[in-house]
């Protein structure tokens, strides 16, 4: 901006301010106020000493409620839906319909949908309302305040912690939220790193897999409540790895591709407001949870059918899924995963919600059949296909760090209007995921930990 324009702007703006001040002075009276609770609470929430522990405790508490609370409904929904599958199968048998039709519709589509609903619905229905309540209360700006200095140190904008928080709901929403960042440089950093925040399409997966990891590590020695707490600790750990990665990649970007000094931002701490509980519950259940679930289901149904077809089409004495898994196998195992897992992540590009169901489908169609009843079947199937605690850990890390889903990539493209940045938004996380998984897997094997 040229100098004279700035000087003129200053004079114009100060005329406006002077008038606003006159009007406010004439119409506002302030009584002496009593004890200001907001200030006391704010001091606790944003102090150096207590701010971070409270943040971690809050995150841990929400995740714990989600892990523990989702377990039972998941079992119930799972057993109901899989009972329906048995019923459907008997209907198909009675009517004498061909096997392939039963395979595509019931074993492919319906079963994948059943996995998506039973694994995804309960955690989402608990996590999203909790998160929205915090948002309504006014906690997010305090989080932003706490993290401001850290983001500045990483060369990014303090408001990035707000867009990051929106990413917990959905990365695409988080990326649109990046419009609140003024500087294009800082905005791009926020857009490119939003994917490292676990979205609610990945939360349920992480929760399910963390339960398996806990089971592997402790062999039921903790009891149900202990296992729940441990599982939520692991998920908190994964979320923190994501935040650290956000900062690390922001730091690297602000020193390489997107060089520049962080700009100053004014952050407003609004007063706490009692959340509109009824509204939040209705809104986050109907509008967000059901919306996200429906979106996942529309992608999952055809994907499930496709996987069944691939898993039952024999080419050279082997089905196509096993062929693909064989090709991807060596690379997968080098990262602590296997060929089926890598394949599921690739097929899961449309939506993160369907990665785990697709993986289950590929294991089940290509390998051993296991009686499915609820979530126990999930861990049973995975362990039967050679999952160790290292596999579970690498799976979680890869899920956390890998490329964004198609919707998110599309949003990046719309927001940046550039194919190059969209490509980078896919390449950077993928590279990070591959490197981290290789380091973890090879490190663990070197130390003989697997």
């Amino acid at each position, binding site marked *: 901006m040229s100098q004279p324009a700035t000087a003129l702007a200053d004079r114009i703006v100060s*005329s406006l301010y002077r008038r*606003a001040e006159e009007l406010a002075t004439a119409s506002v009276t302030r009584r002496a106020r009593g004890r200001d609770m907001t200030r006391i609470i704010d001091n606790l929430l944003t102090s150096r000493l207590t701010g971070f522990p409270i943040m971690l405790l809050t995150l841990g508490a929400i995740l714990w409620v989600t892990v523990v609370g989702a377990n039972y409904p998941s079992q119930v929904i799972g057993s109901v839906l899989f009972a329906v599958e048995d019923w459907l199968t008997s209907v198909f048998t009675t009517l004498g319909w061909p096997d392939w039709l039963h395979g595509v519709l019931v074993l492919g589509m319906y079963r994948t949908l059943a996995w998506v609903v039973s694994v995804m619905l309960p955690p989402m229905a608990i996590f999203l309302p909790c998160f929205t309540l915090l948002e309504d209360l006014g906690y997010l700006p305090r989080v932003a305040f706490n993290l401001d200095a850290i983001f500045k140190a990483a060369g990014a904008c303090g408001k990035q912690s707000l867009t990051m928080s929106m990413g917990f709901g959905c990365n695409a929403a988080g990326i649109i939220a990046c419009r609140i960042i003024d500087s294009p440089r800082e905005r791009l950093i926020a857009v490119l790193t939003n994917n490292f925040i676990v979205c609610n399409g990945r939360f349920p997966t992480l929760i399910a897999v963390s339960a398996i990891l806990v089971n592997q590590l402790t062999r039921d020695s903790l009891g149900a409540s202990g296992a729940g707490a441990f599982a939520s600790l692991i998920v908190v750990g994964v979320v923190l790895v994501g935040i650290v990665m956000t900062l690390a990649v922001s730091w690297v970007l602000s020193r390489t591709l997107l060089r520049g000094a962080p700009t100053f931002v004014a952050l407003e701490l609004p007063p706490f407001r009692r959340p509109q509980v009824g509204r939040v519950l209705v809104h986050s259940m109907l509008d967000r949870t059901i919306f996200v679930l429906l979106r996942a289901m529309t992608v999952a149904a055809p994907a499930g059918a496709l996987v069944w077809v691939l898993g039952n089409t024999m080419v050279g004495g082997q089905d196509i899924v096993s062929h693909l898994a064989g090709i991807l196998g060596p690379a997968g195992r080098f990262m602590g995963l296997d060929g089926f897992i890598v394949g599921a992540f690739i097929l899961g590009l449309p939506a993160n919600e369907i990665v785990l169901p697709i993986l289950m489908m590929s294991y089940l169609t290509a390998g051993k059949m296991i009686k499915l009843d609820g979530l126990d079947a999930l861990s049973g199937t995975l362990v039967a296909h050679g999952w160790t605690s290292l596999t579970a850990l690498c799976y979680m890390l890869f899920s956390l760090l890998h490329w964004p889903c198609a919707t998110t990539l599309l949003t990046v493209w719309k927001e940046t209007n550039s194919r190059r940045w969209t490509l980078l938004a896919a390449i950077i996380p993928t590279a990070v995921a591959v490197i981290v998984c290789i380091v973890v897997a090879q490190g663990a094997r070197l130390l003989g930990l697997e």
Partner: protein
Amino acid sequence: MGPDGPRDRRRRPTVRQASAFPLVALAGNPNTGKSTLFNALTGLNQHTGNWPGKTVLMAHGVTRHRSRSYTIVDLPGTYSLLASSAEERVASDFLCLKPPDVTVVVADAGCLERNLNLALQVMEVTDRAVLCVNLVDEARQRGIELDLRVLAAGLGIPVVATVARKGRGLLELMDAVAGICDGSIVTSPKRVAYEPDIEEALARLERQLERGLPPGAAARWLAIRALCGDPAPAGTAAAPRALTPPVRPASAAPGFGKGLTP
């Protein structure tokens, strides 16, 4: 996720119907309760949350008041119409290019002064404005009392107190909106007088700008924007080049200039 959850579509009028209704825009500083007010008026479920900057996309809805319909637009929060961030410019461009039938400036009663700054700017854009002083319950708890009559007299536009969360004051607000729409309320905004040399420059620029603008556009405010060095809104051949040097970040990377601005 878009503003329209799957449930809302049924009761929503078609675009053609909705565009026939008077257009009412909600403008205001971030986190003053615009989206809450929007939801209360339209019955829609626009996402709300207690943090500044939450609304980045405009949402449209329809409200009925005394058997007439109005289209309501929820604008992203902005501290100033002279702002530079992408989401703030949405509000500014929207108001300047085709001022709505009525613009409701939603203000936080708790920090009126800062909010009035925006109200004064909106009054530069349009005569047809209402000041909605929201969150008056919260302000009262903090010991802040407002004299709305003094405020209305000082601004020259209707001033209404509301608590949008509880639906208080919405009738009065819509009465004021309806009054401006049907001409029963005529506002006489008391505009800010800038220093004489600035006023003179503005008058000259305004005349120059009017030629390149769609009818009804706020030439005076666009002139102020140009004087302040703000780029012209997208889609106008308006602002003279000399006054608006293109603002490019020093760190421009490849593919960068193509625009992050939506």
